[in-house]
Structure formats: C-alpha cells, structure tokens
C-alpha cells in the first residue's frame, strides 16, 4: 500500500516499533488464492535466516517450486482435495494446481499484510509512491484455499490445520460464508484451535453492508474487521452538454481520452433487453451505442464487465451509476475504456438530463490521484454491519481499517480487472473490500506481536480496539457513507484502528481459551458441541452460573428484552457486565468516564477508580445498565473510558432492545 502507512501514522512511528530482528520472527499466514512470488513485495533483501520455529514448506506444483520461496515468502502450500472432490479435477490450463495465484486477490492481501517496501509503485500512475505492507519485516506464509469455483471448508480446515502446525503467529482470512453457529463453522472451529496456540486470527467482516445483521466471522475469538476509506480519491468528472459537471471516480488510463463532447445515451434505451440498463453481456444494440458514452446502472454483473460490454458494442465511454443498493459510495475501477463511476444521487441527476435533452452529450475528465480528502476515514457502505446474528451480546465488527481503493501487489496472470479480455499486466492493483481491510489489521497485529511477543491474541486485539478512534481530529464523529450520518458501533465496532496508540494501550482485556469455553457454556452449548470446538471433553461447571455478559470482551453489546423488563415488574430492567483489565503499562490510577448512551439508559461503573501498582496486575469492575422498555428498532450508543491521564482505554457501548 502507498497511502495507508501515512494514513495510519506508521511513517512517523518507526522509532516506536520493534527492530527488524524482532519483527523478522513474526510469521503472517494468509489463507487466500495463493501468491505471485515474483511480486517485488516479496523481495527478501536484508532478511535474516528463517526463524528456527518455522516448520512450514514451500510446496511444488503447476508453475511453482520451492525455489519460489525465499527469506520473505517462507511458506506456500495449496489445498484442493475438497474442491476437486466436489467440482472435479482442476483444469491446469485455467488455474495452477499449486500455491501460485492466478487471481490476484491472495497476492493483494498478503502484500498488504506484510509486503516488503517497493519504491515507485503505482497502477498506471495512480496512487503512486512507495508501497509496503503493514509489517514490512514480518515473514509471509501463504495457504491457497480458494479456486475459480470458490473456497471449500474441508480445504480451509486443512490449511488452518497446517498453519497451526507450521507455527505461524498471525492468520489472515479475507473470506467468509454465511452465518452458521460456531460449532458448524469451519473457520470459527479452526480459529479456536489457532487462538489456543497463541495465533491471532483476523477475518474480514464481509461486504454485505449496509444491511444490519450482515456480518460473517463473528466468533469472539476471531478479530472481525470492517472497512473504511482513506483520504485518497481518483476523481474523474463528467461534464454534460448543459454545462453541468458531476464528480465520479476512475482508474482508467489509456491512450484514448475524451477531449471532446460525445453523444450520451442511457443503456436502458439502447437495448431490447428488460435489464438493458445493467449492461449485461450481449444486451446493448451496437448501432445505438457506437461512438457514444453509455450510462449503465450498477448491479448483477461485475462493474468492470459493464465497461467491457460497452466497449465490445462500440461505445466510446461509460458512466457507471450506483443504485440504491450502493448509494453514493464511489469505488474506483481500472476500466478497459474511458469510464467514471458516480453515486446514486448524481446518477439520478444525470438520468434526468438524458431524458430531458433530445441530443444529450457528455465528456469525461480524468484527474488522477488526489489526497487529503476529508472527512476520512468514513465507514464504507459495503462493509457488513452488526448486530451480531449469532450472539447479539458480542459486538461485531471489532474494528475498521482501510478497505476502499487499496493498492497492493497483484498477480502477473490476469489484468487489473480480472477479465479474460484484459491483456494488461500490472505489478500493483487497486481494489476494495473488507478483504483489503482484514490484512491491514493482520499486519498491524504482527507489528504488535513483534513489540510484545508475550501478549495473547486477545490482548493484541484489545490493544487495537481500545485505542481505536471514533472522532476526527476536528472532534466530529466518524461518518458512515451509507447514511451520510455519524456511524455507530454496529458499523465501526470500536472504531478505526490506530496502530501507534495500540503499541501502548495502558490496560488490556485479556482472554484465555477457558474463558471462551465458559462463554459457550453460557450459550447452553452441549458437551458434544463444545468438544467439537475445544477438541477435548469440557464440562460446564454445574455449580456456576455462566453469563455471556461476563466474557472479558473489550466492547459492550447490551441487549434488553421485553420479557426481561416485564419480569422486573418495575418498568425497567438492569443488566450487569463484568470485566477484568490487566495493566500492561506503568503503575497508575485509572478513573472511569462514561459517555452516556442516552438519558434513557442509566450506566453505573463500580468501582470508579482502579489503582495499579505493577505491570500485569489485574483489576475487575462491574457495569450496570438500567433501561426501560423501548421499541425493538431502538439502538443507542456510548463509550466507557478508563484513563490515567496518559492512556485512554476506550470501549464502545451498543444498546439495543428486542
């Protein structure tokens, strides 16, 4: 990435982070589409010997051998038995039966997490700069589990099995599937075993936003990552024949540019198909689009394919208009023809012009890369949202990180659009998704692991969460693209990651495997279900009362039910959450500050001060939330902050009614 190190403050903080020797012992495992080992991001210059703890391998296969690994890319495996048994044998003329990445996604995610520094990186000149992963000195091990037809659970589980045995320190999974209960979800099950071995597992939250309850990877032992924007944009303005100009974004860079006004047509009016407005394959009438700019609506087929369809029909350019599903969020693409993407509001204004003017014309002006865009970050519209559909009392996502228009390493097998007809080859590509935000956090977790080798996965996640921010430097609340309003903990979790602050969090909310097993007891899991996850018999102590609210999580999701309030007989009900904080800083006196969610909800913390005299000392506190009955659509938010004057240990509070 060329902008996120600056955006996250990593450029200013070299002195705070560990020397390369310590970081060189940290290994990031990435489960994805494999790796393009020739990427400059895997240059191993200056790397010392491979850590003695490493037990992994560099497996051979189609166009891949052990010689493709080095001191940076120390492991590469592939898992296809499950895929092949369902989908049939892999066609090796179409994809490599080896760790080689024919897709680009895996190279992008792995280089984002831990790519080496590459000077002079860009995509056709866009986003130019020095590209690097978050943990430049960490080692990379790739586990190819995704193929043309998808990623299968038996392969994912096999990769997790090997990664644990290989001794990775951080696992990054930019994939997900559905909303299965924890004991049915192979990622959750494998992640539990990894967590038990001290491996932090970071997963993408999903791209099903802004709908509520759209998250995947919500197990509490997983770090779930949503996506936000950077302060960078790629403007491409649309100028209409009536003199009006509209903003859009584009990564188009070609010999052809639109220097004059061209006829402009709505795809829906240049097609005999009922969904002609979507520019699906073969739906445009060439005679009606030839030499024109065509407006296509977003939806159904890939965005870049719409450009290809317009080009194939003889169109000179394309305007891609978001619909209600995507609102005004602008995601840039490296289209094959001059094209710009505009938001829903702009798209509607343009369509009015197209229907009102008998001879509409337009041109597109490409402006390259702009930085310093404000406000930033904002929560991406596509980023999946809470509440957590499996356990509503665990707030997810945990955190957001950059995931919109991210530049990182790419495969040499396909062009930046991934389309078969795209013959361009690039070393770096710009793409968007929670797939991109997840490896940011994986790499940052690797940095923290290098700085604090003795911290558990829960402690590392806690440091990232309690130091995350939810306000801009000017004091304004973090915004959500989907609404244009302040985002909530169901959108951003604890907030946007701040790695420099996370290095020195003051206090952490730690968790051990047994704490999670007690959490499963609180969910009334059967011993068989718990055994499936724990890999050993575990009996819930019948003398104990287990509560989900006692899981020592760094955030608070408080759920009031009608029944609970009715049972109380007083018109309101109280819920207690118990937490234990571990001092990872110097001795200090911490005082609590409750940023009240609403005057509807009373929040009391007991005790209100915590005195620490030594490092690793633990103190507990109880939070009581008291609220009356409210409609089930009501959500209110707040924060609980502990501070010693130097550190602020901040937890989001999300209160809902069912």
């Amino acid at each position: 990435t060329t902008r996120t190190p600056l955006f996250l403050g990593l450029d200013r903080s070299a002195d705070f982070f560990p020397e390369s020797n310590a970081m060189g012992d940290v290994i990031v495992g990435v489960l994805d589409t494999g790796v393009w080992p020739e990427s400059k991001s895997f240059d191993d210059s200056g790397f010392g010997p491979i850590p003695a703890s490493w037990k992994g391998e560099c497996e051979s296969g189609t166009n891949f051998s052990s010689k493709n690994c080095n001191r940076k890319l120390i492991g590469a495996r592939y898992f296809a038995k499950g895929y092949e048994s369902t989908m049939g044998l892999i066609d090796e003329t179409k994809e490599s039966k080896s760790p080689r990445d024919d897709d680009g996604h895996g190279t992008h995610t792995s280089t984002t997490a831990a790519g080496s520094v590459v000077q002079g990186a860009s995509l056709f000149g866009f986003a130019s700069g020095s590209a690097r992963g978050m943990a430049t000195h960490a080692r990379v091990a790739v586990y190819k589990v995704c193929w043309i037809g998808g990623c299968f659970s038996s392969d994912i589980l096999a990769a997790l099995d090997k990664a644990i045995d290989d001794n990775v320190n951080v696992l990054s999974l930019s994939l997900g599937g559905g909303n299965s209960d924890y004991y049915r979800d192979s990622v959750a099950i494998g992640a539990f075993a990894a967590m038990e071995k001290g491996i932090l597992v970071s997963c993408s939250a999903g791209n099903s936003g802004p709908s509520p309850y759209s998250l995947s990877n919500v197990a509490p032992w997983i770090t779930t990552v949503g996506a936000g924007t950077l302060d960078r944009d790629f403007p491409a303005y649309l100028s209409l024949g009536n003199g009006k100009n509209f903003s859009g974004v584009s990564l188009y860079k070609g010999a052809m540019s639109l220097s004059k006004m061209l006829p402009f047509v709505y795809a829906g009016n240049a097609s005999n198909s009922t969904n002609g407005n979507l520019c699906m394959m073969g739906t445009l009438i060439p005679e009606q689009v030839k030499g024109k700019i065509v407006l296509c609506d977003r939806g159904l087929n890939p965005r870049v394919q719409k450009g290809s369809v317009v080009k194939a029909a003889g169109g000179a350019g394309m305007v891609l208009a978001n619909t209600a599903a995507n609102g005004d969020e602008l995601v840039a693409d490296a289209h094959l023809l001059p094209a710009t993407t505009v938001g829903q509001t702009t798209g509607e204004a343009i369509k009015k012009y197209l229907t009102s003017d008998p001879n509409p014309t337009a041109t597109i002006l490409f402006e390259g890369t702009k930085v310093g865009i404000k406000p930033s970050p904002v929560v991406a519209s596509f980023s999946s949202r809470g509440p957590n559909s499996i356990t509503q009392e665990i707030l997810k996502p945990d955190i957001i990180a950059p995931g919109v228009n991210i530049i990182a390493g790419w495969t040499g097998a396909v062009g930046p659009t991934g389309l078969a007809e795209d013959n361009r080859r690039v070393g770096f590509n710009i793409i968007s998704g929670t797939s991109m935000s997840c490896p940011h956090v994986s790499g940052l977790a690797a940095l923290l692991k290098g700085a604090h080798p003795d911290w558990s996965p829960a402690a590392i996640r806690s440091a990232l969460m309690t130091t995350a921010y939810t306000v801009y430097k000017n004091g304004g609340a973090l915004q959500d693209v989907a609404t244009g309003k302040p985002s909530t903990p169901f959108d951003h979790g604890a907030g946007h990651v701040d790695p420099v602050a996370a290095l020195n969090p003051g206090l952490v909310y730690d968790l051990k495997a047994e704490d999670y097993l007690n959490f499963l007891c609180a969910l009334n899991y059967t011993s068989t279900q718990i055994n499936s996850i724990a890999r050993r018999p575990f009996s819930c102590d019948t003398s104990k009362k287990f509560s989900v609210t006692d899981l020592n999580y760094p955030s608070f999701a408080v759920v009031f039910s009608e029944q609970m309030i009715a049972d109380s007989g007083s018109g309101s009900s109280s819920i207690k959450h118990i937490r234990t904080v571990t001092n990872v800083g110097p001795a200090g006196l911490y005082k609590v500050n409750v940023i009240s969610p609403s005057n509807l909800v009373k929040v009391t913390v007991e005790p209100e001060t915590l005195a620490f005299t030594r490092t690793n000392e633990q103190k507990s506190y109880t939070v009581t939330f008291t609220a009356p009955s409210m409609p089930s659509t009501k959500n209110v938010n707040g924060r609980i902050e502990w501070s010693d004057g130097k550190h602020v240990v901040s937890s989001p509070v999300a209160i809902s009614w069912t």
Partner: protein
Amino acid sequence: STSEESTFIIHMAKSQMPDSFDDHTHWYSSSLKSVSESAEMLYVYNNAVHGYAARLTKKEAESIQKQRGILSVMPEMKYELH
C-alpha cells in the same frame, strides 16, 4: 466418487478412542471403513480439529453419525472471498 456422494467433515472425540487402536488415524480409518469399503479420506485433521474429511453418501453420513466417538458430521460448506 459418485454424484450421490458429497464431502463431510467428521469430528471425532479423540479422548474416546478405543484402547485397541495405537494411532488415531487408524481409528478414523476404521470408522470410515465401517460405513464404506471404497471411501477414502480427503484429509486427516490433527490440530484445527480432531477428525477427517471424506466423500460419503447421505446414508453413510447418517450411519457414521451414530458411531461411538463421533461428535458431528458436518457437510462441506462453500466460502467466498470478500
């Protein structure tokens, strides 16, 4: 494999392995052979879970579920990149 078969992940309670087995993989293999002479293990899992993946018919999967030491028989699930 036949079209009737699909992939299942069989979770085993390793602590319930009969004393007659020296090695858990032999026990896993024996459990599979008891429902299908021809089925082969796709993977044996040792760290992420205890168990294995195999192609089975629905009937075979139901049969294996009833064996002692079997925690669960989970059908293959498809995941997608984000």
